[in-house]
């Protein structure tokens, strides 16, 4: 299509995608504004340190060609599964939930690596043959997805388990699994819900779901957070109450205003206009990601890029759905806006991979 070999732009030589970078910077600016409003200088400062670190990671990840990731995917995947098992064992011999492995100088969560490596592994496996994959291949791929998902869910970390599961399933979707399979598995999942409800769920989990549909059931207990969050969002109105003006967040009616519920603070202080802007930035980033996926040169990179982009969307959708009362509360932060370390690093590393895919071209498309 385009003759890129002759004239490479600076961005391509640096393996940076300017469109994604602009989107990311806009989100970080929004994040800092809201954090300043709820927590003052100190929060912003700490967040900026983390973001800088994550940007460096993103830059480094983008330098390596997709081939490198292709070659290493199965090994890193295998190692991550082993680490997840190790975490479970250590967690059981110790006390209570354990998600961290202590390396002495730092602690890290194997689940975060799993979030990144899952699409690579499934894409690696699926792209060995012509797409769409055979039934047998699909089954094996599903096993590869389910095992780490269960290991993470057992930790227990429901939010991350959902994201890991989604990032694997999305690869299958992009690989062209027939609609018949998709439709029948959806039906299977829905028919499983009653069994889940009556036999597998604990009472407190049922209560959580019930309060989701009717928060007034328990206005000062389980429903309290959802009600307060909805009041925060609703009372923001068209233009919002202005920075520092959010009574819901500033007076601490909202739980965790700087992490999972940061969207409510943003909505309260910047209103519907603010939300439209934020969602527009997200949509811009997602479109760019899908564009990169579509333009990628082989099925492996296509699948990986597609899955990373779609997982990014899941972050946003689940978080916003959760704070506005559409989905149950699971601990998923608002992508690149919530305060917190590991998710930002994982997300930006994901963008680094998108950039790598877009800027390392092994051959020109033949017209």
């Amino acid at each position, binding site marked *: 299509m385009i003759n890129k070999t002759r004239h490479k732009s600076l961005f391509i030589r640096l393996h940076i995608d300017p469109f994604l970078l602009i989107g990311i910077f806009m989100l970080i600016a929004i994040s800092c504004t809201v954090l300043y409003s*709820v*927590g*003052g*200088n*100190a929060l912003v400062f700490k967040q900026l340190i983390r973001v800088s670190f994550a940007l460096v990671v993103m830059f480094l990840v983008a330098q390596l060609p997709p081939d490198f990731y*292709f070659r*290493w995917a*199965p*090994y890193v995947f295998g190692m991550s599964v082993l680490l997840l098992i190790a975490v479970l064992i250590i967690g059981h011999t110790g*006390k*209570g939930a354990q998600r961290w492995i202590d390396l002495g100088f730092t602690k890290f969560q194997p689940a975060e690596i799993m979030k990144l490596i899952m699409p690579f592994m499934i894409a690696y496996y699926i*792209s060995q*043959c*012509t*797409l*769409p994959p055979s039934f047998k291949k699909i089954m094996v791929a599903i096993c590869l997805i389910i095992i780490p998902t269960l290991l993470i869910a057992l930790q227990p970390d429901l939010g991350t388990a959902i994201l890991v599961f989604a990032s694997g399933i999305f690869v299958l*979707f*992009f690989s*062209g699994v027939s609609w018949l399979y998709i439709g029948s598995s959806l039906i299977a999942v829905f028919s499983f819900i009653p069994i889940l409800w009556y036999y597998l769920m604990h009472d407190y989990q049922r209560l959580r779901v019930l309060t989701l549909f009717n928060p007034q059931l328990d206005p*000062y207990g389980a429903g*309290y957070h959802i009600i*307060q969050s*909805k*009041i*925060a*969002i*609703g*009372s*923001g*109105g*068209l233009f919002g109450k202005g920075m*520092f003006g959010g*009574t*819901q967040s*500033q*007076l*601490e*009616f909202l739980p965790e205003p700087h992490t999972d519920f940061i969207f409510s603070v943003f*909505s309260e202080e910047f209103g*519907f206009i603010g*939300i*439209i802007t934020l*969602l527009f930035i*997200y*949509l811009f980033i997602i*479109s760019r990601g*899908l564009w990169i*996926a*579509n333009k990628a040169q*082989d*099925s*492996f990179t*296509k699948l990986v890029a*597609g899955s990373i982009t*779609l997982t990014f*969307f899941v972050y946003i*959708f689940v978080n*916003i*759905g959760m704070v*506005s009362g559409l989905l149950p509360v699971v601990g998923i932060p608002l992508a690149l806006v919530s305060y917190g370390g590991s998710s930002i690093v994982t997300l930006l590393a994901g963008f680094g991979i998108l950039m790598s895919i877009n800027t390392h071209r092994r051959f020109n498309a033949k017209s």
Partner: protein
Amino acid sequence: MPKKQRIKIANHSAEAALFTRRVLVIFLLISIAISALISNMYFLQVTSYKKYKTRSNENRIKVEPIPPTRGLIYDTNGIILAENKSVYSLKVVVKKASNLKNELKALTKLLSLTDLELNTFKKNNYRSKSFKSITIRTALSQKDVAVFTANRHHFKGFSIQADLQRYYRFGDTFTHVLGYVSKMNAKDKQRIEKNGEQRRYRGTNYIGKRGIEKYYESLLHGEPGQQQVEVNSWGKVIRTLSYTPPTPGKDIKLNIDLRLQLKAQQLLRNQRGSIVVINVNTGAVLTLLSNPSYDPNLFVQGMTIKQYDKLLQSRDRPLLNRATQGRYAPASTIKPEMALLALNTGVITEHTTINDPGWWIVPGSKRRFRDWKQWGHGTHVDVFQAIKQSCDTFFYKAAYQIGIDRINPFMEKFGFGKYSGIDLNEESYSIMPSRDWKNARFKKPWYDGDTVSIGIGQGYWTVTPIQLTKATAALATHGKVVKPTILQSVLSRNGSLPLPPEDYPSIILKNKNYWNIVLKGMYAVVSSPTGTGFRAFRTAYYTVAGKSGTAQVVAIKEGQHFTKYKVLLHRKDNALFVAFAPYENPEIAVTVILENAGGGSSKAAPMVRKILDEYFNNKNKKTSFH
């Protein structure tokens, strides 16, 4: 290295077309989902704006946790040792202050705020939100409170808040028993989260960090209550709507006897060491003193880094609980146990005598082990004399003949080399050496010479004062091994809930008479004019059995003479004395260990005497009232 060639795709363009179709589908779905989110937002923020706006304005109902008050701690006589005191702190909500700079200046004049306080305030102000109240000074004096209250109208946004704070009224006397509470740190919070106790600790700032405060944290803490309050637009509480009271922590009563503990502290003034007293029948810990100590209130109120460093770096190590963590060579204080073992294994009988020239040589070697008495204890030393005069030579030989493989399991039955079971987290199990232990620790085999030193409680063997007291109690009761406990009972409205005493398996000997043989020796230590403890106990009006010990801190090489007064302070001998009383019908066991003080019979024995005097005097007073 992984290497796998990607298979060239046969139908590249068909695949690409399939993928593009899927991307379009996804884009469509995402657009729909985002539209759904937006329309939900539109519904919330535009359609229902009025409803939520009103609710937000009327949203004055907040659920707040009410932390429970911490349980009190009493001594065995019902005297309060740890209480909760009202403290007043000066706080400010920065946003409400009309002119923070001027007001702070005025306050500095009024209450003479220090630079440190001002700087801490600035730091906290930078860190937190302007809506939250920030503490300027904690623990205001009565005068400060009065002065501020009189001038409060000048200071908008400033207020005085009353809180309950732990207070240890006897300061450093009970530090190593009670421990202290202190502000929760990140680690505490992590542990609470791990145990799923976040709900219990909502609104709580302090947590037990050491001692009884830590060990019985779950008992002392209580359950928080909660209240629904109505707040005004500044977040200030106007009205309480509903109130679930917190359940206060349980009050507890300890076995510790204030008078005995105070006496012990008085005795140990300016002396590093430890005094432990337990009831031989129940294991009740009457006194547990470790000196030097420190004021636990410093940890509650918060101290400067400098103050903390001073505690941490001090050569006298005040933070160490010597009574349970101090590891000392037991020296001759374990000769009674060693004699029992010698009798029980048949190495000696009641009538076996040895000739003591003042030294003993391991058969087949040239190594000479010296007796503490240069000229020896004479030609006819039997087990009774050996205990009474603390003859080293007798026990060198006995230990050598018994062998470490029989010494180790027997001494473990007395609790040596094991946790005593005392209700404190700060405890060392110390070292009861064995072949395996030495191999694991030094990668060296066990030598006969090692066993010989063990015979007189030197060498690798170390004990904690609580272990030694527990072992003495086991001697006094003919083998009943108690679990030392500080907690006596949990108090409740319906009276007290005493803890049932717990025991370890008793020590059973081949012949019950062995106990009498050894205990007679211990009795002679204090009652016979030639016993090592005679001088200290000559005038006692009760009967006592005891054993002295003088532990070398630095090994004295063979043939090297030393003058007591030339040895540097930190190299002087540790003085030890263990005793139980009364001899016929034992009630309590006492251990005194003095670091670098000199001889056990000259320095430690008089202190044991004074502790026993105090105990029996108090007891007689009590009975004479009835």
